[in-house]
Each structure stands twice: as structure tokens, then as C-alpha cells.
């Protein structure tokens, strides 16, 4: 079962940048676009596992720092000629506060 869990505030993330969140399901990368939209995806490039959170953010996508795959935040899919996808994590915002839809069982285990 999933639940909305607060993971931080908008200003914790630089515009066109990312921060990581450690979760029981692994590391997720939370991105903030130029227009202050927030997205979260697995921090793990479908190509060779590069840390997407370390890439350059442009539009609603990120370029992986290892081999320049471009991953869309909205779909988690690789753009252009490359094929592959990562898991996207739903995000909602309440003003400055950011919530991610994460598995409740993990939280309950605390």
C-alpha cells in the first residue's frame, strides 16, 4: 500500500537541479525544473545504472552523467534513439512542502 510521505521542501532543491532521497526501495532522485515543477524517478539510469541525480537538468528531462542518455521525468522513458525506462514516483506539493507516494509497508516497519 502506498502513502504520501513528506520528503522535503521546494527550496531544498536548486532550480534545474536534483536531490536524492533514500527509501527502502532504493535511492530516488527528486528534480526541480526551471518552472518549479518537481518530479521523482529512480536514481538509476536504465543504460548502465548511472546516477541520474547528478546529470544536467533541461526542460522536463535529465542527461545521465555517464553516457548522455536523456531520461524524461514525465514518463521515465529514454528520449531519442535510446530505449529503456526507469520507475517514476508520484509527487504532490502542498505549497513549499513536497510529498512522494512511497510504499506504506516500508514506513510501517519503522
Amino acid at each position, binding site marked *: 500500500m502506498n502513502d504520501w*510521505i*513528506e*520528503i*522535503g521542501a521546494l527550496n*531544498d*532543491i*536548486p*532550480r*534545474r*537541479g536534483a*536531490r*536524492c*532521497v*533514500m*527509501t*527502502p526501495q532504493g*535511492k530516488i532522485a*527528486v528534480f526541480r*525544473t*526551471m*518552472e518549479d515543477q518537481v518530479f521523482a524517478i529512480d536514481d538509476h539510469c536504465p543504460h*548502465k*545504472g*548511472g*546516477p541520474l541525480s*547528478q*546529470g*544536467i*537538468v*533541461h*526542460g522536463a528531462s535529465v*542527461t545521465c*552523467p*555517464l553516457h*548522455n542518455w*536523456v531520461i524524461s521525468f514525465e514518463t521515465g522513458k529514454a528520449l531519442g534513439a535510446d530505449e529503456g525506462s526507469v520507475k517514476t514516483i508520484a509527487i504532490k506539493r502542498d505549497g513549499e512542502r513536497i510529498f512522494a507516494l*512511497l510504499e506504506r509497508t*516500508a*514506513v510501517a*516497519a*519503522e
Partner: protein
Amino acid sequence: MEAPEKKQKLVIIGNGMAPGRALEHLFELAPDAYDVTIFNAEPRVNYDRIMLSPVLSGEKAFEEIIIHGDGWYIKHGIMLYKGHKVVNIDRVAKTVTSDAGTTEPYDKLLIATGSLPFILPVPGNNLPGVLTYRDLDDVRAMLLAAQSRAKAIVIGGGLLGLEAAAGLKSRDMDVTVLHVMPTLMERQLDPAAGYLLEKAVEARGIKVLTKASTKEIIGEKKVEGVLLADGTVLPADLVVMAVGIRPSGSLAKEAGLECNRGIVTDAGMRTSDPDIFAIGECAEVGGQCYGLVAPLYEMARVVAAQLAGNSEAAFVHSETPTKLKVTGINLFSVGDLGEGDDRQEIVLRDASAGVYKRLVLKDDRIIGTVLYGETSDGAWFHDLTKKRTDISEMRETLIFGQSYQGGSPLDPMAAVAALPDDAEICGCNGICKGKITGAITGKGLTSLDDVRAHTKASASCGSCTGLVEQLLSLTLGDSYNPSAVTPMCSCTDLGHDDVRRLIKAKSLKSIPAVMQELEWKTSCGCAKCRPALNYYLVSDWPDEYADDYQSRFINERVHANIQKDGTYSVVPRMWGGMTSSKELRAIADVVDKFEIPAVKVTGGQRIDMLGIKKEDLPAVWADLGKAGFVSGQAYAKGLRTVKTCVGTDWCRFGTQDSTGLGIRIEKFMWGSWTPAKLKMAVSGCPRNCAEATCKDIGIICVDSGFEIHFAGAAGLDIKGTEVLGLVHTEDEALEHVVALAQMYREQGRYLERIYKWAKRVGLDEIRRQIMGDADKRKGYFDRFVFSQKFAQVDPWSERVSGVDKHEFQPMATIAYQQAAE
């Protein structure tokens, strides 16, 4: 074919655009008829004078506006006397003599002495700081004056004056234009368009004073200001006179040729002496002198035909449209704009779009056109005028342009397709549509440059480039690829060089400003263009631009090198490859403390610690910093390492202190960003143990001094270095190396290593600027030193002190035992 000794001797006085064009025609028509000698008062080859304004504004370099390089003269066996001013024509002996004492005989003489700028006959007009705007020397003088960023006054609100004002403004001067008439460019524009032009000029921060009559230029030893007839005094450090030109005919007059306003010629461009011709701005044909390039090229065509034996060739007067070459201001004007009882006019104004169009009609025909803001129909209107087309049928919609006629779609392509074959496309060169499309299909042309080379269309002022490109795509269909330059990335159609030039020319000082002004196609770029733009801005505005970390590759953001598993490697600087027990001990302690899995000696004589977790980076740096280490920037598109050998300190062959010089260079240059990584080396003797001859920049010490090398490669490509030159002292070596690096910093495309850049701009050009031109070298050196004030900040200590701390910590850890990382 005639035997060479029977060739006639053609002497040309002047080396501007008209005689250059005449020779091109002549070599086509009669390649073996003449031995050609040219006397040029300017010490250089033939260049495109109408492109001086883009040179002044910084949108083009002089090298880009050369029409005929030295090779062209050699190829055609032309004797070119550069910097020779002809002082005498002896019509009896048929010789000319230059101020340097050279005398050449002629069979045919062509006078193309051009024109002189008109100097207002007011007191003070000869003070230092009063310039004209005529040739490259004037442009250089203005650029020099512009460095002071002080006040400039341009007298004259015509084409040249406004272009000069825009150029000086883009060089950051405080510019005022004085114009004696009530509106700008009154000879070509009606008052309404003149008013719009004035607003547009003022919107660029240039002050305009109309009805301003200059009474005196004031100043003691140099220009200090301008006194107007109404008593106003305007302070100025530079005054540019652009009030008109007068034909330069004194030489001809002294030789007894018939002169009026210019040198009088018949329609065949022949003067009162049958063996002497005159063309260009100095010539007066049919009672008129000309200043625009199109009629001058027509004269060139005629005189070439005459010289080739066609006595029928004759000059025909035609109206030439005026266009202003100021980026962002579109205007077009041609024909008779006067009002009268026998005339009618059609006017369209769109104030919000800044558009004004006016057609002057007489007897249902267009006799004059002014377009401001939206000029794409200029060619069509001009064509209707030239053909004297009766427009009564389309009068209702005429002003909306060609695409509104006959129900054809509103598509610029369709508009060009609809033009008749004899419609003029290139006004400067008088090239019509049929000639261009004919050349494209007939000669298999595929690019804009091809069309320029074969037809001259768009090769002068360039304002018809869009039309020519449309003709290329119409004729070739999909096989035409309009971008002769490779765009930076898919976010723009501009290439790296255009972007770099425009950043300077338009004073763009942030990534959003670049994207807005240069019409980026994406909202915030991509991983290709953003790092490139960030570098260009850091390089061009070191003191003003705020480095954009989010546009840097991760390595440059965290000052370490990302590895395949997402960990990082850290390389501290070891100046010139020298280290000590204290440094080595500190490294050993760090390796133990952070359980760093691998330690390796690099090819650049330093030590690499691999496999460090990102979260540990600040603590690793803090410990290294305590031992005196700074970042080795082994990740940077910037100065990496200066490899050295032990030189005279230890080596029995060493000729100089190569280690000391290497350390000195590294300490001087560390922290500087460059287009791509920059690796250097200093070897103490030609045995070259530091492998300096495959580096970006290398120095080989020899007994007599320091041989500077550059443009080597030992990566994807392997290439030995080229020699820049030999200098005698360590100080000189440093200055030359730094100047070379700065030249590369200013011109290189992002990710372009120095050897690729050097191949592109030419080794000789680099040697000329760095070895041969002390002022240039000093300029580069000074700009490098200035930018280092902002660049030499150790990123590690900055991070340790807390800058961008968030980079290294997760934003949240969802507390849960198994999740702990």
C-alpha cells in the same frame, strides 16, 4: 592565343570593390589579354567595404570580409603594390609614379580612386579624436577609442553615420548622433519612416539630436566636445564625421582629364583620354556619381567588357534600394518618395508591430517604396517599379505584399516561387532569380557558399541571404541543407562561432539572456548547449557573469571525477609534479581514513584516489586542504597539469630550470577555464622527458632559450606539436604561453581541443598574433590576468566552508532500517 610578350599592360590605381570586380570579369572574358599592376594606397588586399559596420560592431572579423586574399593576386600574376599612393600620371610617356618612387608604364590605365569623406569646414575639424568612417584604419581607430568607453558623437544621421553609431554603441560607448535635418536619412526615407527609425535608434540607447548644426569642434590638444549653432555644448572624447563623401578626382584633374564632380566618363567608362578609364565612386557617368555598390559593380562589368574589346558595352542608370545594416532594424527604400498633385500613395501603419509601409504611385505605377519593420516584399515592389507594372487591378491589397495577390497562400516560399525569372534578388550585384536558379541546376550547386562563389548573389551586404536560401530549397527540394554551419545543438540553428560573436556583440551576460536574444528553441537548453554557453559567458565576462553550476557537468560541479559506479576520484594539485613526504603522508592518511579502495599515479604526474563516495568528498577535501593541497582540477575543461622534467636542478643534460618554469606556469594559470581540457609540459632539453611535444602547449628548453610548442594531441588523435616560436627569457615564455591560451579561450568552440582550433584558424595566424604582434599579445595576456582574479578560488576549500553543501547530502532518508545507506 596571343603570345605572352604581346600582352598589354593594364595599370589600376586603387584596389577597392569596383576594380576587384572588374578584374574578375576581365579574367573571365579575356584571361590572357593583360599584365595587371595595381597600386593600392591602403596597405592590404581587397575587402568588402560595405561590411565594415559588422566589423565595427564585432559581428564579423576583418578576415571574414576579405574578397581577394593574397593568393588570388598570385594566381592571376597581378603585381600588387600595397601602401603605394600614386602621385603622378604622365599621359605622354604613359606611366604612373607612386609616392614610394615606383614608376610603371601602361597601355591602359584604370582609375578607381574612390572617394574621400567630406569634412565639415568648421574650426577644430583637424583635432586628434576627429575621425571619418571610410576604411579599415578608421574602424581600427574607432575601436581603439571605444576602449575608453567614453562619449562619442557621430555627426551625420545617414546610412554610414547610423551604422557607425550602432557599432560604437555595441562597443559600450555613450553615443550621440547629430543630424542637421529634421529626420534621419531624409534622402532615403520619408518623415514617418525617419521618425520610426529615430525611435528604434534611441531604443538602443543612442541619443539623437535632429536639426543640430555643428558650429565648432572644441578642444585644446584633442577633442573635448562639439559646439552647436544654438550654443549647446556637448562633451565628447571622439567625434566621427559621416556627413557624406566626395569623389576623389584630384589625381585625374592634375593629369588634365576632364573632371566635374567626379572624373567624367562616357557610357563605356572611358575618360577624356581614350586609354584611361575610371570606375567606382570617383567616376561621373551620365552626369551622376554613385556611392552604392550595385551601380559600381555595373561600372566594373562595363569596363571589363570594354577592356576585353567590346566597345558596345554601356552603363545604364538604375535605382538601387537602400538598406541599413544595423542588426534588428529593417528598412528598405527605393525610388522617388516626393509628394505631388500627380501622385497618390498607399500607407500601412501598424504601430504595435512597429511596421510602416508606403508606396508612392503615379499613373497606376509604383515609383517609390519605403518599408520599415517588415521589408520582405521590398524586392517585389522594386520589381513592379522596374517593369512599370500597372497595379490598378491589385491596388486594394497591394500594400499587403505579394502573398496577398491572386489568392496565393501566405507562405514566404510561395512568394519567392511566384517571382518571375528576371526579378532582382541581389541588389548589390544585380543578380536576378533566373541566373541563380540557372546556376544551381546548371552547375550542380548545393550550398549558399556555392551560389555566392558562382553568381555573387548575397556575397556583398548579405541582406538577400534569406531569399537565396529559399531559392536553393525551391530548386533542390529536400536535398538542400541550409545550415552550412553545424548548429551547436538542436536547441538553436546557430553555430558555436555565431553564438560566441553575438554574446560579445549584443553584450549578453546570462544564459537566459542568450536564449532569449538568440531565439533558442527550447525553454532551458540541453546538456550540450548549456555547458558551452556557461563557458562562453565565464570566458567573455569574467567579472560580471555568475557561473551557473546547474549548467556544469557533474565533475565540475563537485570537483571530482565521476566513475562508472557513481563514486568519485580525487586528484590534488602537485605543482609541476613535485611533492614531499608531508604531502604523501597526508594522502596516505586520507586513503586510510576514508577506506579509499584505489590509489594511482596519473599520466600528468599526480596521485589519483579512486572510489570515494560522494558524501565523503567534503571531508576528504578538508583533510587534504589541511596539508596544503588544492584541487588538481583533473575534471575541468580548464588547465589540468603542467608536466615537467627535473631540468638543471638535477639533470646533466638540462639547459634551463624546466621544473621551476613548469611550477611558475601552473601557479599562474591554475583555475582558468578553457574550451576543452588544457594539458601542458616543460622539458629541460630536446630529449624531451616531459613529452612536451604531444601536449596542448609544451615548452622545450634549449641553450638559447625556450621553444614554445602547441597543438599537439595524444588521445583519440595522435599528433606532434607545431612550433610557435623561440623566446629567450622565462618571462617571455610565460607571456607567450599565457597569451596563446587566452587567444584559444576567446576563440575556441566548447570541447574543441587546441589542435583542432589551431587547424581551424590557421597556424600562421596564431603565430602572427602571438609572436609577431606585441600589442595583441599584451592584450591577450592582460585579459587572462584579469580573468584570473575571479577564477583562482580553490573549489575544495569553498565547498569545505559550506558552499553548495546540499550537493553532498541526501535531502531525506526515509527512516527504516534496511534503507540506511
